[in-house]
């Protein structure tokens, strides 16, 4: 951003400088022309005066009467004043050479004037005799030198104009060069800026793409991880359940059978002994019950023994027995050979939903509905409990349900409002090609 501002400033600055330079050059040119004209005018006046003076000198040679001499002297004086005025006001410019020439012209002119004044002071005869020689020998060379000098001045004047033109041309060339430089600089910086921006944008884009890929990958990993976690949990539960059932449960069961046989063989004459064995049997029965409940919690063997719907009905009754909530289970068209992961997912979902309804919602009634139609199986657990805001509070249990449903490619939703009960819904697409697991 600041780079763009800098570029703009650069272009603005060089443009303003160029405009200023042009203005200055224009003024300079005007001044030079003005000076040139002034000087040309002055030189023109000077030449005219010098020629008139020359004429007067010629006349002074042949003037006869005193009136004529006086008029001539007057004229000479006027011309002399004119010339001095021109010389005094001549703007010589910066060069000393022209000033020197001017001084020389002035000196020569003064000498010429002195000669003429001298000539006029002579008598008419004397003038007739001597003047032509004097004019020829002294005044004419002076005059021609003056003309020569003023020619020099004219040339110098021309030279000055030429010089000023040259200076202007040089300045213009330099302005052009500096403008060209500015434009080139601006173009180059613009190009660099564009390149830099493009590189920056490309890098940003690459980073964004990389980051996106990373997010996608980590999300997939997370999903796989949680799927594996659910699998691992289920496998672990099944193993522990089997262990409990097979080892602990059966050993205790055998113990119970033994107690029973012992009771049957004990003589009725030993009530004391019978009572004691009865107590031991009761303890063993409680243990069997505890182990059985634990095993069932870990892995509902109903799923294996009976299939999904009877297992759900069993669970509903079990919850009804052990809580204040009555559970009603309905089902329609549910096939008996659902894959194991479907059975487990639905069973756990219903288990969790009922658990929440009893534990958190204090519901009095709950309805479980499972129905299957072409390629899909739908589960719904509705209760009349307290309800909650599903957007705000999602426990681990709900996340677990959602996870299981998602893993099977299904859709999961919770409808609940405070005071209006809760409905948990899941819809699972059935795999077609797969036989019963």
């Amino acid at each position, binding site marked *: 951003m600041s780079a763009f501002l800098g570029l703009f400033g650069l272009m603005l600055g060089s443009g303003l400088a160029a405009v200023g330079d042009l203005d200055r050059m224009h003024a300079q040119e005007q001044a030079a022309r003005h000076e040139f004209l002034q000087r040309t005018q002055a030189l023109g006046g000077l030449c005219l005066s010098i020629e008139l003076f020359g004429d007067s000198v010629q006349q002074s040679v042949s003037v006869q009467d005193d009136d004529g001499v006086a008029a001539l002297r007057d004229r000479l004086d006027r011309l002399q004043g004119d010339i001095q005025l021109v010389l005094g006001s001549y703007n010589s410019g910066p060069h000393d050479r022209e000033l020197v020439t001017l001084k020389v012209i002035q000196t020569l002119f003064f000498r010429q004037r002195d000669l003429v004044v001298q000539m006029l002071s002579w008598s008419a005869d004397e003038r007739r005799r001597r003047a032509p020689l004097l004019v020829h020998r002294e005044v004419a060379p002076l005059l021609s030198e003056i003309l020569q000098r003023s020619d020099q001045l004219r040339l110098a004047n021309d030279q000055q104009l030429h010089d000023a033109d040259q200076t202007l041309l040089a300045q213009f060339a330099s302005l052009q060069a500096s403008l060209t430089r500015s434009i080139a600089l601006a173009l180059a910086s613009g190009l660099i800026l564009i390149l830099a921006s493009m590189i920056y944008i490309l890098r940003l884009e690459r980073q964004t793409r990389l980051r996106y890929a990373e997010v996608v990958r980590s999300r997939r990993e997370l999903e796989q991880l949680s799927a594996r976690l659910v699998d691992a949990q289920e496998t672990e539960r099944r193993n522990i359940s089997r262990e409990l059932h*097979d080892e602990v449960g059966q050993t205790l069961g055998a113990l*119970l059978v033994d107690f029973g*046989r012992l009771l049957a063989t004990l003589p009725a004459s030993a009530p004391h002994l019978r009572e004691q064995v009865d107590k031991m049997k009761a303890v063993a029965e409680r243990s069997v019950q505890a182990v059985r409940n634990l095993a069932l919690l870990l892995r509902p063997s109903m799923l294996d*023994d009976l299939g999904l719907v009877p297992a759900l009905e069993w669970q509903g009754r079990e919850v*009804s027995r052990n809580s204040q909530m009555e559970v009603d289970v309905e089902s329609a068209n549910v096939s008996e050979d659902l894959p194991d992961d479907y059975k487990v997912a639905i069973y756990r979902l219903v288990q969790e939903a009922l658990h929440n309804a009893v534990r958190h919602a204090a519901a009095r009634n709950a309805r479980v509905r499972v129905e299957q139609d072409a390629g899909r199986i739908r589960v719904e657990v509705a209760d009349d409990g307290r309800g909650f805001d599903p957007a705000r509070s999602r426990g681990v249990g709900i996340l677990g349900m959602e996870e299981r449903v998602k893993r099977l490619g299904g859709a999961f939703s919770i409808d609940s409002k405070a005071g209006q009960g809760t409905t948990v819904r899941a819809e699972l697409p059935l795999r077609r090609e797969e036989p019963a697991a």
Partner: protein
Amino acid sequence: MRTLRVLLADDHNLIRAGLRLVVAQQPDCMVVGEAGNGREAVAMANSLKPDVAVLDIGMPDLNGIEACRQIRESLPGTQVVMLSMHSDESYVLRALKAGARAYLLKDSAEADLARAIRAAWEGKSFFSPAVGKVLLEDYMRKLQRTGGEDSYELLSPREREVLQLVAEGKSSKEISNILNVSVYTVETHRANLMQKLNLKSVPEVILYAVRKGIIS
């Protein structure tokens, strides 16, 4: 009195050993074979043709219910006593639908096994007392909570008689003989009572009777 030939099927040796001892103590029973899973039980039943098969409900490979169904299909003369750890209606109904006559809880197997084997052999139903208790409790609780009424009150005295006889495993012909009415009348009573009680099959009738304590 002939000696009853009994097949035992349970996947746990300890339990099976206990059951064998119980059966062996009966003068009128003998164990002819022991199986460790459902598939084995079906195969042995087919070759040994026992009078009564005692099947554990939760066996690996092929569970007791499925084994019961297959045995009853191929050997109608062999009766089945189901052993289970569960007193829940789902299990009982499943076992009855599969053709089992008796349903014993493992906890009390040693006390009731002999009686159950004999009852089954005679074609009668037998249930562990605890099973009837649990079924009744479930039923009463539901009535209480949902405010429903006991449909048993809707039955006429004759229908109640027929209900009990059906639940005991009697055929319509046997019932007509006992009650001295025509088979057609028995069928009518049977249909009426099943409709009133909302029962769809004989196993459900048996379950209902157990629940109500009409039979045990």
